[in-house]
């Protein structure tokens, strides 16, 4: 009985990812902003006025992107998902979620620290992009194991690892490396989300009564 109810509860939690909008708009959008950010910072130089402003504004840029993307996803879900497969409001703040988030952040930080120490011994490797690739993969893996349980997130994690590995030995400047990493990840998320959305729309046509309204 416990297993069956756990399965139902997990299926309900996975519903948020059913339409691919989170990846398409969220992952694709935020990674695209980061790609532009690091490329611009490299292009203008860290010591220039624009570079300095970009560095000072990173927190605002990230928070702004998250808020915008969140609103856009909510608005799209209202038009695309809720009329087709129904509306769900998830609990905003649960203690165990905070605890799990903190644990995930701590383990990710500890892991990246260890990785930096290991990778720093190789001069030819861009540690930042390698570390970013591993960190994104770890976050996706943790998310996969704890909440989503959707195989496509393993695939995205693998892409992150491969990209981080390839770009770390590419020889490009660090800013361009990070720009390329986030750019390619943005495309990977957009493609994954786009395919999921296409399948979702095909499998869930708009009900007749909604279409007639």
């Amino acid at each position, binding site marked *: *009985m*416990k297993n069956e*109810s756990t399965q*139902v*509860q997990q*299926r*309900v*939690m996975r*519903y948020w990812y059913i339409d691919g909008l989170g990846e398409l708009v969220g992952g694709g959008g935020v990674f695209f902003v980061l790609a532009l950010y690091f490329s611009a910072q490299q292009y203008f130089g860290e010591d220039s006025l624009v570079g300095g402003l970009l560095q000072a504004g990173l927190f605002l840029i990230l928070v702004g992107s998250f808020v915008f993307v969140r609103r856009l996803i909510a608005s799209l879900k*209202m038009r695309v998902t*809720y*009329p087709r*497969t*129904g*509306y*769900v*409001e*998830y*609990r*905003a703040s649960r203690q165990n979620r905070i605890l799990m988030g903190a644990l995930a952040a701590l383990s990710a930080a500890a892991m990246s620290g260890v990785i930096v120490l290991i990778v720093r011994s190789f001069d030819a490797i861009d540690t930042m992009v390698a570390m970013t690739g591993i960190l994104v993969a770890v976050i996706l893996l943790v998310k996969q194991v704890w909440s989503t349980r959707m195989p496509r997130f393993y695939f995205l994690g693998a892409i992150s690892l491969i990209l981080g590995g390839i770009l770390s030995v590419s020889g490009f400047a660090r800013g361009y490396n990070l720009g390329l990493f986030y750019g390619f990840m943005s495309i990977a998320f957009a493609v994954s989300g786009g395919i999921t959305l296409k399948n979702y729309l095909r499998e869930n046509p708009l*009900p007749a009564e909604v279409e007639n309204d």
Partner: protein
Amino acid sequence: MTKDLRGLADLDRAIHEPARLLIVTILSTVESADFLFLQREAGLTKGNLSAHLTKLEEAGYVEIKKTFKGKLPLTVCKLTKSGSKAFAQYRQQMVKFMSTTG
């Protein structure tokens, strides 16, 4: 009647019915869900779901509100505090029953 079977007889009938148990399980996971989502997840017809929700509402376990999300009309269902409590108690009773009967 043995003690074990008496435990089964004490189960909350409002929740014990399979379709209603499924509805309550779904609602226990989220803050609220609308009629269409519950219908799809539970695999019930509109009439059937409506009848089960009415029974749960009468028991005081579910709160049903008709609202709008933007221009979209929604019938939103939410598990009440007594619904959550009854579901937790039901789970405990079932686990206990399963463990004693093996």
